[in-house]
Every structure is written in C-alpha cells, then in structure tokens.
C-alpha cells in the first residue's frame, strides 16, 4: 500500500528530501541482520510504499513538491537527482515566484485558492499511480507562510476529496525564539484548521531535535541539515515496513495502520523519537502508545512496562491503547532500534506556550493588519484561540 507525500514550503521540501533519502538508504543497506528473503520482502514493501518504478530502474519518490518560490524546490530536485539512487518525478512540482511572506493569510487565502486546481491535479496524478493507495503524508512547518497556510488549505481539500484516505501531517514546531516573529500567529491558525481536517498530527519540535543533536550526538555547530537528518531518521524508523499480525513474512499492508482516532475530534501525536524503553513516565498521561522494534531479539523484547494501566487515562484499557510492531530486519545498521510514538499530554506545555504568546500579541493587535489585508479577520483568530484552548483543556482532563 502506498503513501503519497506532499512537501510544502522550504521546511517541508528540505525535510521531504531527507526522508526519502533515509528510507532508500536504509532499504539498500547491506546489514539487515536477517536472511535474504526477509530483506527482499522488506525492500519490496518499502519501495512500493514510497517509490514508483521507472523504465531505467531509478525509483521515483511518490511525492508532490509545492513551494511559492523556486529556489528550494530546484535545490531539492537536483540533490535527489545527484544521489543517483532515486529522484523526484519530473512534473511533480508546483512552484511560483513570489513566496508567501511568512503570512499564513496569504498562503491560505490567496495562494491556496489561486493554485488549488494545479496542486490538487498534481496530487491526483500521483494517487492514480498507486496500485493500492493508503493515505497522505503532508510535511509542513507551522511558522512560515507557505507550509502553514497552503498546508492547511491543501489538507482541507484532501479531506473533501479523499475523505476515506488517511491524512497524516508532519508538523514542524518552530524554535521557541528566533525564527519568525509572527510564528505564534501562524502556528495557532495552522493547528486550529488542521484539527478539523487532519487525521493525525505528528509533531517534531526544532528545540527538541536541536537538543538531540547537541546532547546526544555531540554536534558542535548544528545546522538545519543536521536537524533535518535526525528528523528523517526518526520518521524512517516509523514508516519502514513491519510485520503484520498474520505472519512473520508478510509486511504490514497499511503503514499508517493504527487507529489514530481514539475518540473524535482527532488528537495530536507527539513523536518522542529514539527513546529507551525505560522512560520516566510519571508526569504524563497517555491516550495511546505505539512501540516499533527493529533488529535483534525483537520477539523476546519486554514491553510489559507499556501495559501498565497507570500510564493511560481512566477510560482506556491498555490493551486498546498500546500497540507494538516488530521486524527482525535492522534499521539503518543499528543492531537494535526502537521508536515510540505517543498520543499524550506531552505536547500540552508547548501548545499552551504558543497559545499564550499568540494571545499576548493578539491583545495588542500587533501585526493583525498584515492578516486582515488578506481576509483573515479578528474573528478567525478568536475562533482559532477557542478551538486550541479546548484541545488544551481536553488533554489536561485526561
């Protein structure tokens, strides 16, 4: 079953490239620590999910690239082609010359409708190429104008046109300080809109990944390229094939398979990255946990700790809330690796902070004229605040 990736804006495109690269490198890696047949099944499954085949054998990423200015897309396309191992489709991009000016309203209300037909057309073509289509993976940042505004607009369209397919948004949470001054406004507008149309929000915080680079990987001068590679690594280990319940040699058909809806409205899922299995979990209540184990000794790994009812909210049984996926095939040459994907109160604090800062700025009406200029009025802001306060309250009540 295949996933179509939509890469939006500078962030989405830069990350998208790293993700496809990581997926393919892992797929071709020689140290799978498993038998040949196993490895081949893994590779075939990975290929089918993320790439389509071309005549000369170079896999083409199942992706649509969207940006409102040409520089990043051009760079992304050429980096992929240079790798020699894979590339993007020749006609898979949509590009303009203007940029969105870090303005959510411009992305959502101007660029979105203006280019709706072209973008949805590109997506449709990519979906049609899939023998068996499972859903969308949309990569975007919240802080800018294109990823956030057009991302929200496109996700809404996907909800209308492909209501039966899963839509998972990879959201990049900006650094607390210093990227874009209006990032809090853009973030709350994005999140409140995505809540209505996305099935799952997989979140990566720049601050958290930055810390991983600094403390766990000891990188001295951290660049966005480092950050994106760590991120892609994490995503790769979530999305690569794993066994389905039936048998050891059949890879799970639906990669987005877990039932992300616990109860409507949809909830946000923070990805906690490469965690050890013994995390201190006392201050956090969970709705759902997914553990993915790869490599040696997966069958004997002890995940009993995750079944403790104390971790979960009172109205859920651990058996419903906890899932574990496994495969013997090692990821990225790690003898053993694990990923934890959680839906928990972990993101309440960052969300609350963003809402608080945006609220303070909104009270002084700073920058609002930049949004009303393009049709996003004060009521739209208030609606967004209201819906996010409800999300925060819902999570706090777990």
């Amino acid at each position: 079953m295949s996933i179509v990736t939509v890469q939006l804006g500078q962030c989405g495109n830069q990350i998208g490239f790293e993700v496809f690269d990581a997926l393919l490198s892992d797929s071709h890696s020689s140290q799978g620590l498993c038998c040949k047949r196993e490895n081949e099944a893994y590779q075939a499954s990975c290929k089918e999910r993320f790439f389509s085949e071309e005549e000369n054998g170079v896999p083409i990423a199942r992706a649509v690239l969207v940006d409102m200015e040409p520089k990043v897309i051009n760079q992304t396309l050429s980096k992929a082609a240079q790798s020699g191992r894979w590339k993007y489709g020749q006609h898979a991009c949509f590009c303009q010359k203007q940029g969105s000016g870090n303005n959510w309203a411009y992305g959502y209300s101007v660029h979105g409708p203006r280019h709706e037909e072209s973008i949805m057309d590109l997506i449709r073509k990519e979906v049609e190429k899939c023998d068996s289509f499972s859903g969308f993976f949309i990569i975007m940042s919240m802080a800018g104008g294109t990823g956030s505004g057009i991302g929200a607009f496109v996700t809404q369209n996907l909800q209308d046109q492909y209501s039966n397919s899963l839509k998972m948004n990879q959201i990049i949470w900006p650094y607390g300080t210093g990227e874009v001054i209006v990032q809090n406004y853009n973030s709350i507008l994005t999140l409140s809109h995505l809540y209505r149309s996305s099935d799952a929000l997989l979140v990566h915080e720049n601050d958290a990944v930055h810390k991983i680079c600094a403390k766990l990987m000891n990188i001295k001068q951290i660049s966005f390229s480092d950050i994106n590679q760590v991120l892609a690594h994490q995503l790769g280990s979530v999305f690569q094939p794993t066994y389905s319940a039936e048998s050891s040699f059949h890879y799970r058909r639906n990669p987005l398979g877990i039932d992300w809806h616990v109860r409507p409205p949809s909830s946000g899922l923070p990805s906690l990255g490469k965690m050890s299995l013994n995390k201190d979990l006392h201050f956090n209540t969970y709705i759902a946990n997914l553990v993915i184990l790869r490599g040696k000794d997966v069958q004997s790994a002890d995940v009993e700790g995750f079944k403790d009812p104390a971790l979960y909210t009172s109205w859920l049984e651990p058996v419903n809330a906890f899932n574990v996926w496994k495969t013997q095939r090692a990821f990225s040459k790690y003898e053993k690796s694990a990923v934890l994907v959680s839906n928990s109160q972990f993101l309440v604090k960052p969300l609350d902070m963003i809402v608080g800062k945006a609220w303070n700025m909104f009270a002084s009406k700073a920058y609002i004229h930049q949004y009303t200029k393009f049709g996003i009025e004060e009521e739209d802001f208030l609606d967004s605040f209201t819906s996010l306060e409800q999300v925060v309250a819902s999570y706090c009540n777990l």
Partner: protein
Amino acid sequence: MEEGVVNEILQGPLRDVFDTKQLITDISGSGNNWAVGHRVFGSLYQDQILEKLRKSAEHCDCLQCFFIIHSMGGGTGSGLGTFLLKMLEDEFPEVYRFVTSIYPSGEDDVITSPYNSILAMKELNEHADCVLPIDNQSLFDIISKIDLMVNSGKLGTTVKPKSLVTSSSGALKTRHKKPFDAMNNIVANLLLNLTSSARFEGSLNMDLNEISMNLVPFPQLHYLVSSLTPLYTLTDVNIPPRRLDQMFSDAFSKDHQLLRADPKHSLYLACALMVRGNVHISDVRRNIERLKPSLQFVSWNQEGWKTSLCSIPPVGHSHSLLALANNTCVKPTFMELKERFMRLYKKKAHLHHYLQVEGMEESCFTEAVSSLSALIQEYNQLDATKNMPVQDLPRLSIAM
C-alpha cells in the same frame, strides 16, 4: 532633474548596466525645493515616469517590490521621489515599496533641508511600506573609523590599491570634501545584504515581503534602523577574519548603525538578523541568547527575532550580518528634525519659495508637522512601556 549626475553614470564603468531609454532628466534642478520637485516636476513628468515604470514592470515575471533611493533634504529626491511613491501606490498597489532615505545631518549645508525632510516624511508615513533611514553623519563616522584603523596600522592592515576607502576620485561633490563614494558603498552593501536571501540559496530563506511582515507590527511604525558588519569590504582592506560572535556584538553597537541611534538603550519592537556565509542556526541561536539580556523588547514581542541564513557570503568575506531593527531609537532623529523645522518655520524663513509654487499652502506644512508629531507620539507611548513588568493576560476560559 539636472543632468550632471546621470551623465557621469553614463560615462562611468557601469554605463552598460542602465537602459538609456529609462532615464529622465531635466536641466535646472529643483533648487533644493520639495515643492518644485513634488508639484512642478511631478505633474510635468508624471506621464513619462508612469510609462517607463510600466515598461520595466512588464519585463518582470513577477514584480515583488520597488526600491526607492533618495535623500530627504534636497528637492528632487525628496519632492519628486515622494511624488513617485504615491504614484507607485496607486498604480501597483500590491507591490511593496521599500524606501532608502538619506536624512540630513546636523551640519548639512542645505538650509531648507528641514522643510524638505518633513514634507517628505508625511509622504513616507502614508505611502511607504518600509523605510530605512540613514544619515550622512553616521556614514561619515564609519568611514573615518575605517580610515583611522587603516592609518594607525595597529592591526597590520594594509590598504589595497585603488580601494574606495581612501580614494575620493570620482566623488561627485568634492567641494564638500566628504568621501561620498565610500559612504555610498556602505549603503550599497546594505541593499546587497537585504536582497541576498532572495537572490541566493540558503537553509532559511527570507524574501523581501517577509521583511515587512515580520518587522512592521503596525502600519505607521515602519522605520527600520540598519546596521552592517563587517563594515568594509575586504577587497579594500586586509584584516584578519573576526570571530563570529564578535560580528553579532558589533551589529548591536551604536557605532555600526547607519543612523545616529542607539538601539541597545531603546525599546525593540522587532529585530531581523540576515546572516550570510558559513553560519549555522546554532551560531545564531547562541548569539541571540547571549545578547538578549542586554536588549529590551516590547512586552507583546519578547521573542521578536526573525532570522535568515543565506549560504553565499559577500565578496571577500567569509560571513556578514545585516541587522534591521524596528526600534524606538529612531525617535531622536525625528525629534531633532522637527526642532530644526520649527526654528525655521517660526520665522517663516524661506517659506515664500515654497508658497509660490502652485498648490502649496501653509496648511501643507502644518499637516506635515502634525503627521510627524503623531508618529513621535506613538514612539513615546511605546517608550513609556519600557520598564514595565510583562504581564500575562487572562486567557479565554472554555466550558468543557
């Protein structure tokens, strides 16, 4: 509106860069009179200017912004320049208007420069998206400092032959004995750095429309103080590369600002750091953390930083930084200008030169000065909030 300057450009090394059909000149000049520039030449050349603008615009796949470069103190740049600004707003309302304005210094020799400047300010207030005020005195001080460093030989610096730093050949107003070429070179570098992220690739691009979006929280507060480091191109002077962090510190020092202003001791509304060269996001973040405690930001924008990273450094450097600050430190410049204006206006000195131009009345002057006063008042109100504790406002309460 006189031919000398344009003719020099056409005979100089860049003559092929300019399209001669896109040049408009007159003979007599505006006599340092804003009214002549704005009203007389404005109406005279309106159609011609519009036609040439449309022609240039047609060549563009996607027109994003206009750069207007002028001085405030004279007649043509100030008067005709602001007339053009209004025309651009009417003709191309969706295209950003960035104005680089040279403000008159204290000892400038054009007596009517306060009148011209204030009349022009009203237009900038109303029709510009973003203004970068610069004054000659600051540019001159920067050049003098460079001279001092070069001549002292303390750092073992050597001046390369034919550098712009010391030669004043080609300086147009030699009677002033000011190194205008070198001073203008600094402004040119400012504009280069401003557009670098739009022209070159980088890991965090910043387009020109993002400048306005991030740095202009309220439409009337669109004056941005700029500072540039390093100040001189290494094509002129051999200097050992300075530490990266030093570059960030310099950008906030009073000496590096292109306006007589001290942003460190005033209130920031927003700040943008446009970095070029081999600099990573962690370097920028480290420096922001380091410098933040000594800077004051307005309560609703405590983390008001905008960053851009462009991979290509300027010629001769390994990295550079342009800082744009929306800061109340512009207020003294405006207040001084207003004082100089009032000194002249109270005595009605030279007023007749303006009033004899058709359409000019005293009300033009009073309106202009009240527009400036209102702007100064806005900055005053912001300054009043400077040392107040930041309070979190009560949030919406939701019924569950």
